[in-house]
């Protein structure tokens, strides 16, 4: 089997969708061939195939980018907006939150916004406080948005196809640290349905529920702890909202213990909602308090040593799992 990187997988998914439907267009800063096919090369080669009317390099105008995609979606297109870095969503939140998310509801279902907002972020490359945040909790709080983040190349391809096919707005978060990850090539026309988690590692003693970049850390910790005789299950949510509650509950019902892990700031993060829902549904069946692990409560720092101190480490994850398993009440 040949391998494919996440960059290649995303490019292929967009390419396939564009070949099928002329309404699939991509708007974003520097995305066309003239500008090099995007700063991370996700749209490399697409302008040559589909032209500048469908691969539109934009001015640096995030409100105009997202707003134009909202309008295009209202008229029946399936636009993809590229917001180069996730922190830049802060300058176009009005279009995302007040318009993309709400127009289906406020119109009584007369219109819908089939829009994918692709955005990149991630801690670990020294970009500092304004280019690194995972902001999924902001969007998860807004009714009408779906949020997706792949942990590997094959899922990136399948989730992107599903996101483009979705008739509602999808925030598609790509972690810069995952772009080079390789998967077995899933082949053409690979779809991963939205809202479905994957059990990446099966285990009996404790469930780690996570998504995105930290899935790889959880898998590594599960392997390390298995050598110590602990059986850890790893659930990759893949879709953060709406998350696969059935899969999470089934896993925690089996293990009786849960560690929720994300790269985003721990306080008020999505882990709090997942934890609350597990508590509501499984109170009395839990053998230990749910453990949460996330980023520190500060801006993401630049200095490498601080950055490493900011993000959840494998040692912290292992320690949380051991705390849960060793809980005596």
């Amino acid at each position, binding site marked *: 089997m040949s391998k494919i990187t996440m960059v290649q997988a995303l490019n292929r998914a967009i390419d396939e969708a564009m070949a099928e439907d002329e309404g699939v*267009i991509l708007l974003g800063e520097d995305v066309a061939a003239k500008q090099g096919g995007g700063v991370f090369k996700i749209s490399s080669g697409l302008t040559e195939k589909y032209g500048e*009317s469908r691969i539109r390099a934009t001015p640096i105008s995030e*409100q105009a980018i997202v707003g134009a995609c909202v309008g295009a979606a*209202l008229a029946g297109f399936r636009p993809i907006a590229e917001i180069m870095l996730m922190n830049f969503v802060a300058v176009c939140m009005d279009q995302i939150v007040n318009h993309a998310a709400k127009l*289906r509801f406020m119109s*009584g279902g007369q*219109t819908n916004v089939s829009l994918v907002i692709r955005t990149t972020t991630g801690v670990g490359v020294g970009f500092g406080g304004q280019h690194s945040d995972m902001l999924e909790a902001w969007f998860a709080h807004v009714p009408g948005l779906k949020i997706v983040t792949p942990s590997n190349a094959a899922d990136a391809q399948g989730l992107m196809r599903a996101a483009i096919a979705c008739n509602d707005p999808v925030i598609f978060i790509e972690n810069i640290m995952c772009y080079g990850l390789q998967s077995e090539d899933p082949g053409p026309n690979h779809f991963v349905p939205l809202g479905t988690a994957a059990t990446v590692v099966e285990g009996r003693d404790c469930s780690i529920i996570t998504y995105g970049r930290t899935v790889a850390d959880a898998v590594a910790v599960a392997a390390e702890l298995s050598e110590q005789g602990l059986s850890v299950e790893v659930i990759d949510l893949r879709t953060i909202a709406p998350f696969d*509650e059935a899969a999470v509950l089934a896993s925690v019902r089996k293990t009786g213990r849960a560690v929720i892990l994300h790269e985003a700031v721990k306080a008020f993060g999505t882990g709090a909602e997942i934890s609350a829902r597990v508590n509501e549904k499984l109170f009395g069946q839990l053998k230990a308090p749910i453990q949460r692990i996330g980023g520190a409560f500060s801006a993401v720092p630049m200095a490498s040593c601080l950055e490493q101190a900011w993000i959840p480490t494998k040692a912290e994850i292992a320690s949380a799992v051991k705390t849960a398993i060793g809980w005596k009440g």
Partner: protein
Amino acid sequence: MTIDRETLLDIYTRTMKIARFDEKMRGLIISGKLATLYYTVRGQELVSAAMMAAVNKDDYLVTTYRGQHDQIAKGIPIPLLIAEIAGKATGTCKGKGGSMHITHPATGIMVTTGVVGSGLPIANGLALTSQNRGDRKITIVSFGDGATNIGAFHESMNMAQVYKLPVVFFCQNNRYGEHTAFADHTDVDNIANRAKAYNMKAIHVDGNDVSAMYDAATQAVEHARSGKGPVLLEAMCYRMMGHFFGADFSYMPPEHVEEMQREDPLPKLRKVMLEHQFSESDLDAIVSGIDDDIDAAIQFALDSPFPDADELSLDVFEEKIAEGMYGA
């Protein structure tokens, strides 16, 4: 330009539908029959009527919370509009939008936004689909003078001109942004001049002069439809009441109030109609027919049921929110 009688009659009919609707809405609120937030369009009837008389039914419209004149001029069925404002299940949006969020795609009304300036970026996207499809539709986006100081205005004007999108940016300069007078929020003589900064075609017109307004609208529409790119059309008018109906507007200086009463588009238009050999009785008959229709529309709205609570789980996503999810 001299305006032909047929067009004049069309504009008059649209204007009076707006005017009678607006007066009756205010009456409903004052009488206590309807408790709702309503942004009166008194003073802006003609600019909108003349603009919409120049576009096609399937052209797209994006407007704002003060948008009932645009929606009526574009042809929205008035019973569905009033039912929506009353929060009824029979409204255009099943009572889930209200006066600030009217949508009616069958008449091209794609978005009504309650956020100042947010319609402009969306208009570009609608127009972009027309450009890619070659369907020759244009998009009209309405906004006030106040909206021209928000970043979305600048971003949208620039992008529309870079892409040569078929958009008419229709600024209804009613001389107030909420409670702040034009001269206090903007240090330029007029909004149309701002188009120069984007290399965009601009038209500045007295919106209460029916011939001039219709001529300007026609020019703007032809320019956008020809593929030459967007236009900024600034129509000068007056907001003859407060920000929303019932709001204080004693901050308007007396000389401004005097000026706007002198320039009131309704008596001015009636005078033009009479000059064009329409008789008083012809005009009265038109208004009387409109009154009957609006009275029936109001009755329909008042008699209609409110939406079911089940609506909360519908239209959030394409699929219904399943029981147990999101606290539903």
